C-alpha cells in the first residue's frame, strides 16, 4: 500500500467512525473524503478480496442481499455495500466500514450502478460479474438499453479472467462475444416446449434478434423480454443454461415457492422478478461451492430480506412499501398485486426529481389497465406529480370517486390510517419514498435510516 493510500484509508476510516458513531449517518461522505486524498484508494482497500460485481437494471439490491446471505453460510464474513449505495463513494465507504474478521476467503459482493462498472472494474479486478437484466430505465438519465449494456461491456472487457454469471433468458447478454468463462441461468418451466411459438406483448422493449434484427419469439416467456427466446428467421436462440428454475410452486405478494435443480426453495417476498434474483444468487453460491441444502437454508432464514420492498405495520394496517422506477419493474409489481387474495388499498406516489427521472412518461408504458380493480377499495395519489399519476389511473379505468389526492405527506399518512382495508400497497418513486419514510420516522411509525 502506498503512503498516500495509507493516509486515505486512515482518514476515511476515522471519518466513517466519526459520522457513524457521533453523527449517526454517512453512507458516502467517508468514501468521498478518502478518494479526495487518494483517488485510487479502492485499489488498496480491495487487495486480497475476491469481488463479485452485481449489475443490471432491476434486481441489483435484492440479488446482492441474497448472495451475501448465502455466502455467509459457508464463508462467515462477507463484505457488501448497503442498499442503493452503488456509486463509487458508497463502495469505498463499504470497504472503510467493514470490520475485518479472520476468514479463509475474503469475499466482497458489490451492487454496482451500470454506468460505473468500468471504473469500478479498473480499481477492483473483480472475479465474477453477475448480470441481472437490461430494461429501459429513466431514459433521461441512462439513455437507451444498448447504450447501457455497452457501458457494462466496456467494464467486462477490462477483466477477461473474470467469470460472467448472466441471465440467459435475456437475449442481450449473449449478443456480445467475450473471452471470459460464461455461466447462464434461466427458467426451464414445465410449459417450456419447443413447439410453443409465442410473442412478447407490444409494450416490451429489446425484442429484436441481436444477429438479424427480426422480432424474437419464445417457447416460454416469463416476463417482459425474458424467456426461452428464439429467432424464427436466423435460428439464434437461448444459450445453454447451467442453473435453472424448473417450477414455480406458489406465488403470493409476500411469498414465493419454487424449484431449482432438485430442491424446493421459499423466500418471504413476492414477484416473479424476485425468483430471477434468487436464481442469480443461487448460481453465484453454487459457483462458490455451496451445496443446494446450504443455499436453501440461507434463503429460509427467518430474517426477511427486503431489497427495495419493505413491510410496515401502522395502526391496524399492513403496508407494503414498494419502490418503482421503470415500466418493466412497475409492470411486474402490478402482476404481483394481481396475486393478492384479499381486498386492498393502493397508494401511488410519483415524483420527478433527478433520482426519480425527470420524465414521468414511463408510467404510461406500464399496464395499469390490466390491474384487477375489484380488489382495490380505495386509491390515494400523491407526490409532486400527483396530477399526472391521478390522470394515468383515471385513463386506466379507476373510478375517480374511489381516488383522492394527497400531495402533503402529513395528511397522506392520516389518510392511510383511515383506509377501508387492512392491506395497503404503496408504490412510490425513489425521492417520494425517502420523503414518506422521513415523515413516518418523525411520527415513530418506522425507524430512521434505510
Amino acid at each position, binding site marked *: 500500500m502506498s503512503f498516500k493510500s495509507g493516509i486515505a484509508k486512515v482518514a476515511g476510516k476515522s471519518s466513517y467512525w466519526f459520522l457513524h458513531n457521533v453523527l449517526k449517518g454517512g453512507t458516502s461522505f467517508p468514501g468521498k473524503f478518502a478518494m479526495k486524498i487518494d483517488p485510487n484508494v479502492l485499489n488498496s482497500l480491495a487487495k486480497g478480496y475476491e469481488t463479485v460485481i452485481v449489475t443490471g437494471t432491476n434486481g441489483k439490491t435484492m440479488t446482492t442481499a441474497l448472495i451475501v446471505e448465502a455466502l455467509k453460510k459457508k464463508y462467515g464474513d462477507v463484505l457488501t455495500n448497503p442498499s442503493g449505495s452503488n456509486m463509487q463513494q458508497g463502495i469505498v465507504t463499504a470497504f472503510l466500514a467493514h470490520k475485518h474478521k479472520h476468514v479463509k476467503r475474503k469475499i466482497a459482493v458489490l451492487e454496482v450502478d451500470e454506468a460505473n462498472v468500468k471504473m469500478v472494474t479498473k480499481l477492483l479486478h473483480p472475479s465474477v460479474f453477475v448480470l441481472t437484466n437490461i430494461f429501459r430505465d429513466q431514459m433521461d438519465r441512462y439513455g437507451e*438499453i444498448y447504450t447501457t449494456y455497452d457501458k457494462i461491456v466496456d467494464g467486462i472487457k477490462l477483466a477477461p479472467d473474470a467469470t460472467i454469471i448472466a441471465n440467459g433468458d435475456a437475449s442481450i447478454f449473449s449478443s456480445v462475444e467475450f473471452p471470459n468463462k460464461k455461466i447462464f441461468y434461466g427458467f426451464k418451466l414445465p410449459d417450456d416446449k419447443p413447439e410453443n411459438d409465442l410473442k412478447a406483448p407490444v409494450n416490451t422493449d429489446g425484442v429484436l434478434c441481436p444477429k438479424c434484427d427480426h422480432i424474437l419469439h419464445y417457447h416460454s416467456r416469463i416476463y417482459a423480454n425474458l424467456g426461452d427466446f428464439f429467432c424464427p428467421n436466423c435460428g439464434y436462440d437461448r444459450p445453454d443454461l447451467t442453473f435453472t428454475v424448473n417450477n414455480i410452486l406458489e406465488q403470493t405478494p409476500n411469498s414465493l415457492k419454487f424449484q431449482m435443480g432438485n430442491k424446493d426453495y421459499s423466500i418471504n417476498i413476492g414477484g416473479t422478478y424476485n425468483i430471477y434474483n434468487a436464481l442469480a444468487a443461487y448460481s453465484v453460491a453454487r459457483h462458490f461451492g455451496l451445496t443446494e441444502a446450504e443455499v436453501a437454508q440461507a434463503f429460509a432464514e427467518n430474517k426477511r430480506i427486503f431489497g427495495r420492498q419493505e413491510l410496515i405495520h401502522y395502526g391496524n394496517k399492513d403496508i407494503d412499501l414498494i419502490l418503482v422506477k421503470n415500466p418493466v419493474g412497475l409492470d411486474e409489481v402490478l402482476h404481483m398485486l394481481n396475486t393478492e387474495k384479499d381486498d386492498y388499498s393502493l397508494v401511488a406516489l410519483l415524483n420527478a426529481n433527478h433520482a426519480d427521472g425527470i420524465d414521468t412518461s414511463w408510467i404510461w*408504458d406500464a399496464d395499469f389497465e390490466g390491474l384487477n380493480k375489484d380488489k382495490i377499495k380505495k386509491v390515494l395519489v400523491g407526490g409532486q406529480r400527483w396530477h399526472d399519476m391521478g390522470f394515468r389511473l383515471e385513463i386506466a379505468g379507476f373510478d375517480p370517486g374511489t381516488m383522492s389526492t394527497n400531495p402533503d405527506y402529513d395528511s397522506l399518512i392520516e389518510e392511510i390510517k383511515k383506509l377501508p382495508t387492512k392491506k395497503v400497497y404503496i408504490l412510490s418513486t425513489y425521492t417520494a419514498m425517502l420523503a414518506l419514510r422521513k415523515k413516518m420516522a418523525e411520527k415513530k411509525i418506522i425507524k430512521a435510516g434505510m
Partner: protein
Amino acid sequence: MSDKLIKIAYLYEDLMNTYGDSGDVKILSFLLKREGYDTQVDNISLGDEFNAFDYDFVFFGGGQDFEQTVVAKDLPRHKETLRKYINDDKPMLCICGGYQLMGSYYKTNSGVTIPGLDILPLHTVFKSDKRMIGDTRYMTEWGEVKAFENHSGQTYFDNKDKLHPLGDMIEGYGNNPQDHVEGLRYRNFIGSYSHGPLLKNTNVANAIMKMIIAWHQERVSEAKKVTE
C-alpha cells in the same frame, strides 16, 4: 363495418414503444369511449400488410435509435398509402422518431444518412452532444401545451410555406435550438417531439378526437354506399 368501432393503426407498436407515447393512444381510446365509441388498436409491425384507409387514425410513436433504424428499412413499403392518407386530410399523429421518419431523411450521430418516407418536406440531424431534454411549454391553436422532450434529433422544415409548426415555444427547445417552434401541423397530420404523453393535454386530445370522429363518419357512410 360497425358504426361505433374506431380502428387505430399503431405503426410498429412493438418496436417504437419506449417513451410512454402509448399513452396517447390510451387517452384517445378513453375519450372516444366517453363519446360512445369502442376502439380497436392494430399493431402494424415488420413485414405486415397495411392500407391506411382501413383506419380512422394512424399513430406512430418514438422508439430507441436502434429500433428506429430497423423500422426505417421496413417502412418504405407503406409510403404510397400514407402519402395519400395524409394528403387526403386524414388524421395522423407522429411523435419523435415517428415524426422524423415522415421527412426526407435523418442523419445519425455517426454521420449516416437514413432515408425517411419523404412525404413531408423536412429533415433531421442528430447531435448527440446537444441532446434536448426537459420540460416544454408551447402555445398551439388549441391553447397551451405542457410536455417533455428528450431527443438529439434537430428537425428543420425545408418548405416553410407548406409546413406550419404545431406551436410557438414558451419553454424548452422544440424542433431545434434555432427556430423556437415545436412540431408540425399539416392538414390533419400532427408531428411533435412531445412525450409526457402529448395527449395528457386534453385540449389537443379533444381536437384530434374530433378529426377522428369526422373521418370515421365519412368512412362509415362511404362503406354503406358501397354495400347499397
